[in-house]
């Protein structure tokens, strides 16, 4: 059993935010905050950069729309030209609904799977689940977890950094 990292428990969003600011300023990279509900200003306190997700959605959305349009153009105007209700082969207004729908589909798939990918989900287990305390992360406690793999990690110093305002700091062991 190797030490996975540290888990610190806080009673209030304020204490959590302050701990996050300390972690941010100390330059940690492999750490996270866990809260039972969205906490305003936490992104800033953690020094989170803007997510890449909007760009993934934009590219996949436009890609979906382009695919939808190109597919119909190829089918109706190139591969199987048929006169339908007296319209020209290339009747672009007729392609718009499918273009729109595939655009939405691409964007939606990009949003869901992009989100999962960037969050490294799904995963069946996480070392912090070993902690009995951590169960209250979905109820009334706020947590910061730090991985020992972080280049800035130092068992004693990081513990001191987290200590301020915390109700408990515990070491998490990795089962695997």
């Amino acid at each position: 059993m190797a030490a996975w990292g540290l888990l610190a428990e806080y009673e209030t969003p304020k204490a959590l935010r302050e701990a996050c600011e300390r972690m941010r300023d100390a330059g940690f990279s492999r750490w996270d905050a866990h809260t039972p509900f969205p906490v305003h200003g936490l992104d800033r306190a953690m020094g989170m950069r803007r997510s890449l997700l909007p760009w993934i959605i934009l590219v996949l959305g436009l890609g979906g729309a382009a695919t939808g349009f190109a597919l119909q153009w190829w089918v109706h105007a190139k591969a199987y030209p048929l006169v339908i209700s007296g319209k020209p082969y290339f009747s672009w207004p007729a392609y718009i609904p499918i273009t729109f729908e595939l655009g939405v589909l691409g964007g939606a798939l990009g949003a869901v799977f992009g989100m999962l990918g960037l969050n490294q989900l799904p995963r069946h287990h996480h070392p912090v689940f070993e902690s009995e305390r951590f169960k209250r992360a979905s109820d009334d406690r706020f947590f910061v977890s730090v991985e020992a793999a972080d280049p800035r990690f130092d068992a004693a110093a990081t513990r001191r950094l987290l200590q301020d305002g915390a109700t408990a700091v515990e070491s998490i062991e990795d089962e695997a």
Partner: protein
Amino acid sequence: MSAHGTTAGVDLDAGKVRIPAGHPLARLGPIAFGVGALGLVVAFLVTRGDTRVFAFSWLVAFLFTLSIALGSLYFVLVHTAMQGGWGIVVRRLAENAMAAIPAFALLLLPIVLYREELFPWIREIAEGKDHILHGKEPYLNVPFFLTRAVVYMVVWSAIALFFYRGSRRQDATGDHAISVRLRQWSGPAIIALGLTHSFAAFDWIMSLDPHWYSTIFGVYSFAGSLLAGWSFLVLVLVALRRFHLLDDIVGPEHYHDLGKLLFAFTVFWAYIGFSQYFLIWYGNIPEETIFFRHRLEGSWRGASFLLAAGHFVLPFFFLMPRAIKRRPATIALGAGWLLLMHYLDVTWLVMPSLRPHGVAFGIADVACLIGFLGIFLGVFVRLTVGAPLVPIRDPRLPESLGFENI
């Protein structure tokens, strides 16, 4: 989320929520009103002898300005019905815009007076030769047309004043029951407004071309109206910033949400506009396609493409990034552009009936637009100067002040 960021740190009495007497903005009201009245007189004088041109110019400016006021009314009603929190700090300005609606009852008179110049069905039905119009006579006849116009104005004014007075009374009493009562009435009011707005669009725009019909036209009309209302609101907020009014009260978070609504309704407008075009194109029935045929001939063709690009494609990509929506200068640019495009939209709907051969703007069009905007701004400024800029005792005000997008 209401627990975060209360009124702490925001001083509502610090001269940011009231325009003091003698403030340059207070003088703007009468000036705007005077310029507006002058504009309308000029419009009448320059078209002397051509009541048809005057009536059409008047109608375009009337519909354009009215749609700003109605869009504001929609915003207040929907925000109230949804028990919205974020927009409380900008609601009063929308209320001031909607409270100008009763003034439009007076401004409607020239349209009623020159109805025969505007609406060809009046003469054609009287001649009794048109089979299709004969079938539409139960709806399209002058007494019913006039009755409906009165009904629209009464319903809109009643809703606008009811919500305006309720909100102002809460400034004085702080009574939470007012919020509850307004919310209860907001649902029925939205239905009444949606229906009357749709029928007004049928009466005053669609019947310019009486053979043509489109059942989605009401939705198209209020999609544009909502955009106009929000665009106006954004422009007013950014203008107030220059005088350090509402500083720390309205911030990037509120601009962001208004920007999201502008973005969403740019898409909604295009969705409805395209749906209308698409079904008419597909069905290919002459009495329906005539509407687009008129608008794809001569320089109207260019106007149609400009509308598609400028009212949808351009703002769609411009308003997409988050930073654009949060910066006052950029969101104001988007709002100003959309308002301009809305004017083009109204012109595009109305003017091909007067000028089938191409787009043209005369002095009368400009004078009417200045006239209507002047009078509207005059009323708006008068109401804005006379009351706090935010509903100071709304129970959700703290939530709105501390609002953050996640």
